[in-house]
């Protein structure tokens, strides 16, 4: 008997008597009008920063917020940046990026998370190896909680997807969360309606 078959054989012999699969409710209760404020509170808990409307001049906004940034990699049509994700065919080269600009297809009010997948990033590492990340999010695309979030098709279709909820951090020394860790130093979410022609 092969290893696989042997493991299956033992599992089948030892499984406890069948127990029913419970139905999981969505636990939704918030009014649509409260989703943005809940998202804002949750993002703050996770050490992310929220900008509640698109800045008049995005270039000026970026220069003020990241004065030392030279390489700005944009994966969105709203802003050109100095490079595109495709400029980093060796994915480790994304470490040269100062700021990545991406758009998320979904935010989660309960946790302040934004969904990102290879569809949005094109080169996944721009979301982690860059020094900072700015995520554009259509406020209409904020869902209430994790139960609703997991109904998004990305989780069934994309090779890689992540719920990013704040900048990379660690509480491993002394038990209090500090930044930085290995990934981005800051996460900024800009509420920015998606263009209708996209």
């Amino acid at each position, binding site marked *: 008997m092969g290893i696989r078959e042997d493991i299956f054989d033992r599992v089948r012999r030892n499984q406890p008597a069948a127990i029913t699969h419970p139905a999981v409710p969505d636990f939704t209760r918030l009014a649509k009008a409260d989703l943005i404020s809940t998202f804002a509170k949750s993002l703050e808990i996770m050490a992310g920063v929220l900008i509640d409307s698109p800045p008049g001049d995005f270039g000026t906004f970026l220069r003020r917020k990241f004065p030392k940034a030279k390489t700005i990699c944009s994966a969105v049509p709203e802003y050109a940046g100095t490079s595109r994700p495709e400029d980093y065919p060796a994915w480790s080269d994304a470490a040269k990026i100062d700021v990545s600009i991406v758009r998320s297809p979904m935010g989660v009010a309960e946790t302040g998370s934004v969904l990102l997948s290879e569809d949005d990033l094109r080169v996944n590492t721009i979301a*982690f190896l860059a020094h900072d990340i700015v995520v554009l999010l259509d406020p209409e695309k904020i869902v209430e909680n994790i139960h609703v979030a997991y*109904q998004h098709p990305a989780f069934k279709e994309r090779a890689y997807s992540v719920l990013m909820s704040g900048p990379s951090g*660690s509480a491993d020394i*002394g038990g209090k969360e500090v930044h930085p*860790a290995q990934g981005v130093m800051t996460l900024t979410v800009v509420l920015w309606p998606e263009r209708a022609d996209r």
Partner: protein
Amino acid sequence: MNIPPTVDQAANAARFIADRAHEQYFDTLMWSLREARDRSASEVPEWEQLRDLASEIKEHTLSHLAEYLEQFEASAKRNGVTVHWAHDAYEHNQIVADILSRHGAKHLIKSKSMLTEECDLRRYLENRGVTVTETDLGERIQQLDDEPPAHIVGPAFQKRPQDVARVFAKAYGSDTNNSDPVYLAHEMRKHTRPLIEQADAGMTGANFAVAETGAVVTVTNEGNADLSGNVPKLRICSVGIEKIIPTNRDLAVFIRLLSRSAIGMPITQYTSHFRAPRQGGEMHIILVDNGRATRLGMEKFWPSLKCIRCGACMNTCPVYRRSGGLSYGSTYMGPIGIIMMPTFDIRRFSELPFSSTLNGSCSNVCPVKINIHEQIYAWRGVMDEKHQIKLAKKGAMVAAGEVLSHPDLYRIATSATETAFKLLPRFVIYNELNAWGKHREAPAPAKQTFHQWYKEHRLKA
């Protein structure tokens, strides 16, 4: 043959307690996590319903495990993933080494995985010329200090910031007097990021593996699983067979419970889903049994397979908090370790079930409602049946059983004890045989026993 000795947790704990500064630091830190967990749970109105659901989903899955393993394997293969199976640690390590060798990979970056700790993978690979870099901050600290994890969520929680400063000063030449966690985290980033960028292969464990999608799900605050799984083209994921859950709808329940139970936060910064290899890359999933299929058949102990590795039972346990994680001499420690480790080696871990007050706090905070304290008690029975209890301990238990089952004998014993405490000199009471008195004063003797008081007051009435 070199047989490892039985772990004497009590003796190890005594050494930890002797270091007062570390003991108090660790106790305070662990309790703060328990308090954070309570605050976070209280903000979720459906918290108890989520715990019920989590328990039922896990029990359902484990009772249909073969079916879901088949579904997971089929989904993963459809996604272009190569699926491997391993009976035990040796087979698992061999598979990893073979994959790396086929790609000529000499440098592996990995995120924290208790399964790879269980398999002692790092030592196995390093003996074969592969450099392994842990990318989780706590795990890296322990790697640099050549120590196993002391906690399943924060491997280096047992070290104070000053200890970490000393480890980094030795390894990285950083300032040994600077114990600011922000400074230390910067040092870690400065020295580890270049290693991540140059790695040949990346490895993660799995918090969950979803049967319907074939995705391996990891949760981290650092994003180090995302780096380990995305920077190199070669990705290997080690998954214990009990980590399978049926659907994304089920996954939501666990994601809501895990981080709140562990550290009192609504979610970790990165909840990552690795479903298929990146374009031009390769993804391998190793499904590992290592005793789990056998445990599944243990009538009293199979529910321990529901564990989602949040560490809440450890943070609340008075014995763990005052003993330190390393005192258990095992991969899994604290209450969950006590009920898991004897399934790996009953003789070596035969003393662990006695490292508990049986107060039930562990079961009360467990997000998947494992009856931990009841299992600890049941393991004591098993140790007795299998003759794994030390003679001195067994003798004391037999005597206690005899006294407690005979009311007259019990009354004489309690009364005699009170009298003895009043009359005997200190050296007779506080000696090696009195474990209670090793670290504390015995309570002042009462004037009369409860039974004597009851007879005087209540029976008269």
